[in-house]
C-alpha cells in the first residue's frame, strides 16, 4: 500500500493506482475530459492529452495529469490549489476557443461532457479569440463526423484501433490542424470502418454523432398510403428507460410498446420474435454442419454467429478468406424484415412497397446493414428505416410523451411473441446460450437438465466452454469486441487448434446492451452491467425460455416456412457475404 495525501487528506491506496483513481476512491472527483475507462471490459483511453485533470504534486516542476500519474509513497497532491484551478480553467478555455460553441443546435446538447465541464468550472467567457479549426463534414449511413467539434481526446481512435482493431481512425496532421480522421482524410465510408459506431458512443462532444432518421420515420407515419410497422430489438427495452430518468436496468418492454403505438405505428412487433426465428435457422445450420463433420464430410467449422452487422462487416473486410465460416442466417432485424415483407404484407393486405418496416435498434451498424443490397427486393429494402434507442427517446419526447406515464401493453401478433432465449440476445453470450438451449434439445431429443448456461455469461472478453451434448463435447467460444474476435479468427485461420465448433461474436462492449445507439453511458460500466442483469431477469421471468417452444415460431413453420433451413427459409432468411477487403488494403 502507498501512503499519500490528497488535498491534505492522508489516504492509502494500492501501488499502481493513479492519482485520479486514488482521489475518486476517496471521494474527490477530479474532472477529466479525454480519460475514458470501461471498467472490467478492457478498455481504457488515457493519452494524457487534454490536461484537464492536472494536479499539483509537491516537489514536481510542472503540474501532473492525474489520470496518468501513479501515486508514490509520501506524495502530496493538491487538486484545487489556485495554480491548479487557473491552469485547468485556462486549458478548458483554450479548448472552448477552438470549438464551434453552437451548443443549442448540437446533437449532444445536454449530454455533452465539455458542456458539463464548462459549467462545473464556472467558465462564463472565453478570453481567447482566434482562428478555429474547420474540417470537411463526412458521414456514413451510421456515423456523422463534424470534426470542428473534436477536442482530440482520442477516445474514438483508441476504441477503433485498440478495442475493435478496425484501424479506421487515427490522429492526422500536426499542431492546430491535428484531428482524428481516416487515413489520408478520406471518407470514413471509404475506410476500413465497419460502422460499429462505438466512436460515437465514447465521443465526449458532438464531433461524432449518429445519422438521425427520425424525420424519415415521421414522414412515413404521416403518409396515409403507407402501413408502418415497427420491431424493437432485445437490448432496447433494458436501456430506453434511462432516457426518461429511470434507473439503469429498468425493463420498459410494455411501456415502450405503448409509446410506439401512440407515436402512430400501425403495428408494434418484436425483434425478439425474429431472434427466436434466428435460433431455429442458425441452430439447425449448426447441427447440420456438425452432423456432416461427424460423418467425415468436408465442412466449415467453427461456425460463427452472424447477427451483429458490425461483425459481419469486419470479417468481410478483414477475413475474406473465411467467409464460409459464419452462419448464413440473417440477423434478427434482417429476418424480421424478410418475414414482414414476404409473409406479413399479404396478411395485412398491403403491397410490399406500401409496408414500411421500421426497426428500433441499440446499434448504429444496423443503419448500414439495413441498406445492404442483398437485403432488398427490387430496390425495396426489407427494413426501410432504422432508429437507435436514443432516436426513439427523442421521438417520444418530441411527441409530447413521457415513457414513465405509459401503460404496459403487449406487442401485436403474430410477430410479437418471444421467449427468454430471444431476450438474452442483447447480452454477450446470449445468442450462444439461446442456441444451445434449442440445439441441445433438437440434437439429443432430451430435455435440458439445466436451462442456464452460466459459462456463456459475464463480461470476460473471450469465454470458452465445452458443453456436453449428450456425450458429444461441443466446444464453444464467446467474444465481444472485434479485437477479441480477431484473435479467434486468426486461430481459425491457423487451423482452429482449440477445435471450436461454434463461436459467438458481438462487436460492442458487453454485447448489444452496450451498443452505440444506446443512451450514452459516459464510461460508467455499471450502467452496462445493470442492463445485463435486467436482460437475464427478463429471461428468467418468461414463461417460455426456449426458441423452439415459441408458439408463434412453431406456427409460422407450420403455416409458411415448412422447416428450418428449408427451401423457402433459405431463400428469405439466409444471406451471403462479400469480400470487401479492398477498403482495408487501400489504407494499409
Amino acid at each position, binding site marked *: 500500500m502507498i501512503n499519500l495525501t490528497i488535498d491534505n487528506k492522508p489516504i492509502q491506496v494500492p501501488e499502481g493506482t493513479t492519482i485520479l483513481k486514488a482521489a475518486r476512491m476517496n471521494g474527490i472527483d477530479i474532472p477529466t475530459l479525454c480519460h475514458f475507462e470501461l471498467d472490467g471490459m478492457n478498455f481504457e483511453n488515457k*493519452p*494524457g*492529452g*487534454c*490536461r*484537464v485533470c*492536472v494536479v499539483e504534486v509537491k516537489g514536481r516542476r*510542472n*503540474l501532473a*495529469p492525474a489520470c*496518468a*500519474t*501513479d501515486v508514490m509513497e509520501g506524495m502530496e497532491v493538491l487538486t484545487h490549489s489556485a*495554480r491548479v484551478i*487557473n*491552469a485547468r480553467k*485556462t*486549458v478548458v478555455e*483554450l*479548448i472552448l*476557443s*477552438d470549438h464551434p460553441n453552437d451548443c443549442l443546435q448540437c446533437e449532444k446538447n445536454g449530454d455533452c461532457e465539455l458542456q458539463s465541464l464548462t459549467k462545473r468550472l464556472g467558465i462564463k467567457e472565453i*478570453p*481567447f*479569440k*482566434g*482562428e478555429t479549426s474547420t474540417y470537411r463534414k463526412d458521414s456514413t449511413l451510421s456515423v456523422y463526423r463534424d470534426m470542428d467539434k473534436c*477536442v*482530440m481526446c*482520442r477516445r474514438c481512435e483508441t476504441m477503433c484501433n485498440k478495442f475493435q482493431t478496425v484501424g479506421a481512425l*487515427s*490522429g492526422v*496532421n*500536426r*499542431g*492546430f*490542424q*491535428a*484531428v482524428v480522421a481516416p487515413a489520408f482524410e478520406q471518407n470514413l465510408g471509404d475506410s476500413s470502418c465497419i460502422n460499429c459506431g462505438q466512436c460515437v458512443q465514447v465521443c465526449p462532444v458532438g464531433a461524432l454523432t449518429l445519422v438521425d432518421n427520425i424525420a424519415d420515420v415521421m414522414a412515413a407515419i404521416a403518409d396515409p398510403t403507407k402501413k408502418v410497422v415497427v420491431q424493437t430489438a432485445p437490448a432496447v427495452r433494458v436501456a430506453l428507460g434511462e432516457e426518461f430518468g429511470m434507473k439503469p436496468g429498468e425493463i420498459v418492454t410494455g411501456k415502450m410498446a405503448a409509446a410506439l403505438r401512440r407515436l402512430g405505428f400501425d403495428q408494434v412487433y418484436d425483434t425478439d420474435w425474429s431472434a427466436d426465428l434466428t435460433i431455429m435457422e442458425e441452430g439447425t445450420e449448426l447441427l447440420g454442419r456438425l452432423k456432416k463433420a461427424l460423418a467425415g464430410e468436408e465442412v466449415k467449422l467453427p461456425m460463427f454467429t452472424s447477427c451483429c452487422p458490425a461483425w459481419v462487416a469486419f470479417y468481410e473486410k478483414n477475413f475474406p478468406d473465411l467467409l464460409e465460416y459464419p452462419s448464413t442466417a440473417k440477423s434478427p432485424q434482417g429476418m424480421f424484415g424478410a418475414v414482414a415483407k414476404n409473409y406479413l404484407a399479404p396478411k395485412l393486405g398491403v403491397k410490399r412497397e406500401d409496408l414500411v418496416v421500421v426497426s428500433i435498434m441499440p446499434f448504429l451498424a444496423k443503419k448500414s446493414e439495413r441498406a445492404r443490397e442483398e437485403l432488398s427486393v427490387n430496390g425495396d429494402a426489407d427494413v426501410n428505416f432504422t432508429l437507435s434507442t436514443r432516436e426513439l427517446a427523442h421521438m417520444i419526447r418530441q411527441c409530447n410523451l413521457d415513457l414513465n406515464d405509459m401503460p404496459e401493453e403487449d406487442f401485436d401478433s403474430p410477430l410479437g411473441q418471444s421467449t427468454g432465449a430471444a431476450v438474452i440476445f442483447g447480452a454477450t453470450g446470449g445468442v450462444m446460450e439461446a442456441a444451445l438451449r434449442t440445439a441441445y434439445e433438437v440434437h439429443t431429443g432430451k430435455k435440458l437438465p439445466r436451462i442456464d448456461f452460466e459459462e456463456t455469461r459475464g463480461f470476460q472478453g473471450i469465454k470458452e466452454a465445452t458443453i456436453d451434448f449428450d456425450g458429444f463435447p461441443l466446444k464453444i467460444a464467446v467474444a465481444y469486441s472485434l479485437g477479441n474476435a480477431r484473435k479467434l479468427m486468426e486461430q481459425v485461420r491457423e487451423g482452429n487448434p482449440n477445435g471450436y465448433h461454434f463461436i459467438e461474436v458481438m462487436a460492442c462492449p458487453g454485447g448489444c446492451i452496450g451498443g452505440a445507439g444506446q443512451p450514452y453511458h459516459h464510461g460508467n460500466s455499471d450502467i452496462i452491467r445493470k442492463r445485463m442483469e435486467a436482460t437475464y431477469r427478463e429471461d428468467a421471468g418468461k414463461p417460455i425460455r426456449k426458441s423452439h417452444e415459441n408458439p408463434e415460431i412453431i406456427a409460422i413453420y407450420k403455416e409458411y416456412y415448412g422447416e428450418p433451413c428449408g427451401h423457402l427459409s433459405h431463400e428469405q432468411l439466409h444471406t451471403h457475404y462479400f469480400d470487401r477487403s479492398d477498403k482495408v488494403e487501400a489504407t494499409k
Partner: protein
Amino acid sequence: MAKYKMHILICGGTGCKSSNSLQIIENFQKALAEKGLSNDVQVIKTGCFGFCERGPIVKIMPDNTFYTQVKPEDVERIVNEHIIKGRKVPDLLYTNPENKEHVSDSKHMDFYKKQIRIALRNCGFVDPENIEECISRGGYEALGKCLTEMTPEQVIAEVKASGLRGRGGAGFPTGLKWELCAKNHADQKYVICNADEGDPGAFMDRSILEGDPNSIVEAMAICGYAIGATKGLVYIRAEYPLAIERLKIAIRQAREYGLLGEDILGSGFNFDIELRYGAGAFVCGEETALIHSMEGQRGEPTLKPPFPAVSGYMGKPSNVNNVETFANVPVIITKGAEWFSSIGTEKSKGTKVFALAGQINNVGLIEVPMGITLREIIYEIGGGIKNGRQFKAVQTGGPSGGCLTAKHLDTAIDYDSLVAAGSMMGSGGMVVMDETSCMPAIAKFYLEFTCEESCGKCSPCRIGNKRLCEILEKITDGRGTMDDLQELRNLAAVIKDTALCGLGQTSPNPVLSTLDNFWDEYVEHVVDKKCRAGVCKKLMSYVIDRDKCIGCGKCAKGCPVEAISRTDYTAPGNKLASMVIDSTKCIKCGACINNCKFGAISIK
C-alpha cells in the same frame, strides 16, 4: 609507393558541398594529375571544419594553411603557387576583420583559438568515407578497450564518472541513463541514436555524422555492450542524405572490418546497426515520439513513465542518446573520465558544440568547453556583431530556449546557468541578434515554428501555442493592449505548467524570456504602437518632411500603390509644392525612400 608529401583537405560537408566543393576536389585532382603530382599530393574530402561562414574551406597539410571561400577556379592558382612553388595565396587566406591581416594558420584564427574539439575531433581532419583514416586516429580502440579490458559495469561507471550529460537538450546524465537501461533484463534491448536534429539552424549532429560517422558507430557499440543490447538503430531525418550516405558507408566498412556484427574483436559480443528514417518532425526529437515514429506509429509523445529504459522500442528496454552525446563516448573511454571531467564546470563537464548564427561575423559550428562565457563566444570566436552594430540578444536552445541579453554576456554557460537565466542549452543553436531585431517579432517567429511542429496531442500545446502566436501577431500588428500582455504571460505560464512533453513545456520560453528581458519593447508596441527595430511593418509609417522635400515627384512615380500626392505647401526656397504620403494606402515597401535623393522621407 612513395609517400604523399602533402595532403589537401577539402570540406565535403553539406554547407561547403552546396558551394561547389566537389568541383574544387575534381579540379584539384585534375590539376595535380596534369602537373604529375598525383603521387605526391593526396586530396581528401573531409567533414565540416566548422567555419561555415567562409566556406568552402581548403586546408593544406603539413603547412597547415587554411584557405577560405575557395572557388573552383582558384584551384589552379593554389596548385601553381602553393603546391609547386610553396608560396601561400594571400587573398584566399582568412582576413582578421579587426586588423585586416591575413591569417594563414587555423590555429591562429580567433575562431579556433578558444575551441576544444572533442566531439568534432575528426571532423575536417579525416576522410569520413575511409574507416582506415578513423582507425589510424585511434578509432574503435575505445570499443576494443571496453570489450577486452572492461566489464559493462565498468564502462557505465566510467561514463558516469565523466559527468557526461545528454547533448540533445535536457542534459540528463548519460551514465545514469545507461545504468537504468542496463538494470532492466529483457531478451532484446536497443541502442537508439537520435539523429533527428530539428532545431532550426542547428547542424551539429549532421556535421558529426558527415565528418566522423565512425565515432557514432563505435559509441553505439560501446553503449550496446554496456547496457546489454545487440541492436542499434539510428533515427535520422531523411533530409540529411549526405549524413545517411556516410553513416551507411561507415556501418558497411565497420562490418567488413569486423567492428560490427558477430563476435566483435574476438570478444563474443555481437552488435549491429540499422537506420530508420524520420520525416523531419521536430517533435520526433522527443524520445518517446521518436520511438513511436520508428515503430511506424504517429510521431507523438506519450507520458513517461514508462521510460524507454523500461519500455522503449517495440516495448523493449531502449537507450536513446543523441549524436553529439555518443560522439563524446569513445574519447571518455580512451582518455578516461578524469581527463574529460577536468574540462567544463562543476555540473556540466566537457564541451558543447554550438551552431553559431545570426548577426555575427563568424557564423559556423564551434565546440567550446562548458563554462565559457557568451562574451567569449560572441566577441572572440564569433568575431563580434556584423557591420559594427550593437549586440542586443542571443537566443540559445532553439525554439525551446530563451533570449538572453547583454547582462548575461559574462555568465559562464552550462546546462544549469542557462536554465537559471531563463533559457536552456537545447541542442546547441545560438542565434545572435543586434538592434535590428524586434523581440516580440522574434518571439512570434519561434512560436510560429512550435505551432507548426506541435504534434497536436495535448490541448495546451495544440491550442495554447496557437493563441500565443495570435496574441503576438496582434501585438506586432499594433492591435495589442496591456491586457494582452497580461494574458500572454498567464497563458505562457500555464502552457509551461501543463503541456505533455518537452516541446510544449518549453515552447513558451521565447515569449517568457523576451517578456522578462524586453518588457519595454512590448509596452512600446502596445502603448506607443512603435517598433524600435523597424521590423513590424504595420507599426511603421513613412513620412515626408515637407521642408526637405523639393517636390521633384520621383517618390510618387515610383510608388506602386499611388499613395503619394502633391500638397499645396511649398517650402521656403523651393519652386514646387512638397509631396505627402497617404498612410492608409501605403504598403511600406520602401520604394519612395530609395527614390528620394534629398533624404526627405523617413520611417516613423
